[in-house]
């Protein structure tokens, strides 16, 4: 299994290297302006200078070798657009996205499981139907739309939450104001997290519900009922435990998709994660940064898959 992951990793690294270079567009060409922008334009000499500075004038193979070499030493290169090392850029921004993703995934998982269990409890009743329909509707709302909606009502209109950012401007972390800092982090992160939770909730609910329904039909559940166990005990002690593997698998697999939604949500709320970074990198054809960001995402997703594999094996040793 480890060998499978290693091969995948090598493949990803190579594709990561090739893709930015295969895209049309030149990182040093700034011909057009967008509204509100001012461009500096580079002369031919400057472009040639920068090209050699970043090693882009060498053959593809040479660049690849150099890239792998640097990668081995943990050097992801210097961003062409930002002029700082890619590692420092990622290290500064990734924790924000990671926190957003983990918190919202966990919350939506817990909430989804709870609601799914409730739904099974009230199976074939009115409340189940209502819940089911609501969840289906929620799961279809695109994250960008949900975010804009929350932004307008909760931040702009009723002013319960701040309009943008991850922390109030110019607020630096120090041990003395750690409590206040944490409180602010939660306050600023509330809306982005809520958006992501809302969009993921439906999925977890459905899979919990379906999984539980399948488990309830099993023979051992009849036995449990025959033994006279309460519904709560049957539901949470026996059924849920056996229904867990698909839920957990979904949890880890979703992490990849949630990164994508997180990017959109970060844009709506100007949250300082890698979402903006990735968008800028694509727009400006910053090869070096693009490679770094994609590599990071790919590694995260691979890691999550690995965790999912290991965990499901632990939960249910029958899984091969």
């Amino acid at each position, binding site marked *: 299994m480890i060998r499978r992951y290693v091969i995948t990793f090598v493949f990803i690294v190579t594709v990561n290297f090739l893709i930015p270079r295969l*895209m*049309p*567009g*030149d990182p040093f*060409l*700034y*011909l*057009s*302006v*967008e*509204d*509100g*922008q*001012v*461009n*500096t*334009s*580079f*002369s*031919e*000499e*400057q*472009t040639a*200078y920068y090209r050699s500075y970043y090693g882009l004038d060498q053959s593809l193979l040479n660049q690849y070798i150099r890239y792998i070499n640097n990668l081995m030493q943990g050097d992801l290169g*210097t961003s062409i*657009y*930002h*002029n700082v090392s890619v590692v420092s*850029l990622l290290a*500064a*921004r990734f924790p*924000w996205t990671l926190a957003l993703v983990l918190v919202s995934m966990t919350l939506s998982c817990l909430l989804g499981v709870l609601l799914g269990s409730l739904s099974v*409890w*009230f199976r074939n009743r009115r409340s189940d139907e209502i819940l089911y329909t609501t969840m289906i509707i929620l799961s279809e709302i695109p994250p960008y739309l949900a975010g804009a909606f929350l*932004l307008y009502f909760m*931040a*702009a209109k009723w*002013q*319960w*939450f*701040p*309009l*943008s*950012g*991850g*922390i109030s*401007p*110019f607020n630096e972390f120090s041990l003395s104001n750690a409590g206040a800092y944490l*409180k602010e982090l939660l*306050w600023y992160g509330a809306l982005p997290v809520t958006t992501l939770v809302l969009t993921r909730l439906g999925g977890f609910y459905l899979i919990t519900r379906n999984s539980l329904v399948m488990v309830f039909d099993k023979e051992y559940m009849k036995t449990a009922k025959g033994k006279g166990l*309460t*519904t*709560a005990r049957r539901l949470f002690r026996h059924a849920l435990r056996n229904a867990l593997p698909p839920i957990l698998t979904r949890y880890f697999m979703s992490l990849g998709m949630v990164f994508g939604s997180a990017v959109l949500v970060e844009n*709506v*709320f*100007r949250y*300082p994660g890698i979402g903006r970074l990735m968008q800028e990198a694509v*727009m*400006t*054809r910053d090869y070096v940064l693009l490679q770094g960001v994609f590599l990071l995402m790919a590694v995260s997703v691979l890691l999550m898959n690995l965790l999912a594999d290991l965990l499901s094996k632990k939960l249910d040793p029958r899984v091969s």
Partner: protein
Amino acid sequence: MTTREEFRGGTHMHVKKWFVAGVLMCALVLAGCQQSNVSDAAAGQAQETQTEQETPTDQKTQEEQPKNTVLRLAGGDTGLPNPFRHHPRGPGMAKMQLLYDSLLEKNEEGLIPWLAADWKMSEDGKVITFSLVEGAVWHDGEPLTAEDVVFTYEYYQKHPPVSNSLMADGGYIIESVKAPDSKTVQMTVRQPSATHLANIGFMRILPKHIWETVEDPAAYEGEDAVVGSGPFVMDSYNPQQGTYRFLAFQDYWGANPRVAAIEWVPVSDAVLAFENNEISLINASTDVLARYENQPDFTIDSKHSFHNYRLMMNMERRSEFQAIELRQALAYAIDREGLIEKVERGSGAIGSMGYIPEANKWYNPNVKQYDYDIEKAKALIGEASHTFSLIIGNDPKEVRIAELMKIDLDQVGITLNIESVDSKSRDEAVQKENYELALINTGGLGGDPDYLRVTYADEQATGLASTIPGYANEAINRLATVQRTEMDEAKRKELIDQLQEMIAEEVPMILLYGAVDNHLYRPAEYDGWMYRYDHNKTDHNKLSYLERNDQ
């Protein structure tokens, strides 16, 4: 004995009640927590804005304005603001220019003395002598001398800064620079040109004592990497949040800063942030203007953006464009007023076919006008019908412009096949001349009219705009070369006027329109916003933040 149903129902009812009660209790508790947290936080936030609001709204006039105004503007990471690290796009350059001074500055009319109190140019235009001001110091207290200036221009030759206007015709425009004494700098240029004064004068001076030991300026991370001699000092910079804070430099040698600090903060929606008093200035779209028009609390300055959408024709790939009748027909056939109405809701200015826009002081009003006239267009085209492919970016405005043009040109027998790609790909297509027709929005039209030479003359482009493939006009080439070395401004104006008339007649490129920016702010809070003769993004202009004593 109770039936199975009753038994089940019984347990169910009992458990269900318990469960629902539990959930409801949790919800109540959570809501309660949230309320108190939120009201605390909201109160805190309100208090913050309250104190900020109190200070600015006290002032009424410029003289009475005490110097504790804090300006807040929409932020975003534009790089470390020194000449080597700011981002090439966006207002990164403007932030850097607040921290670093140049020899000359620009106001509404033209060049004004700055670090150079006075300057003289030799008869042949090859030697420029600058006399420096007294009392200029660096942020770290060291005095600024002619040695810093000499060092700067030599350093820039070896280490080009991000914004570099010291290169021309493939070489460095300065041949030598020396300091006969501590207050005088003498520069000798390779080839005289009317553009040198502004190009040289607007470069930022570096402190020699910091940069003389730095081999790789783009990687320099020292504490003093943003030490300049400008009216503001950088107090804080957070790249992830995109926040900057500049404080007024108390020992500034020149015009006093009018504000105590400038803060750039992240903003998700500019209009909402402006409404909430979170930022002081925005470039408002026409849709929201109605809300703020004709109100004493708000001022709207409508200024040309110095950008212009243009339709480029590749005469090499499609030789039909060599025929002047076809080009003129295209110019007559496109309803440019209509474009402004439909795409910009009226907030735009028709492009002059002589290239230089009306807002630029070099504009010639006598150039040929191409009012929307379908009949004239049809007469010029005759019976022929054509099909061309048009490459555009994926900005929604560009798409709309292309569609409207397609409808217009259909009426004169020209069919457009529109191809929309992302802007980088379109830029590359234009640079590699891989197009038939291209729609592109470029800027810099406020600057020196030498860009006419770069755009229309048959020479190597310097990257400002792509040359027109396949187009060569002897008269334009000659005139464009001559104007460059004409030092007398009145004579040069005549040449530039002539050049514009020629270009408008030939119309090798169709200038569509330029967007007009609407700068919206509260005059009671701050009213120092000014507009340079060549740049109308008021928050980029240094003099917007300083007391004016040059008027």
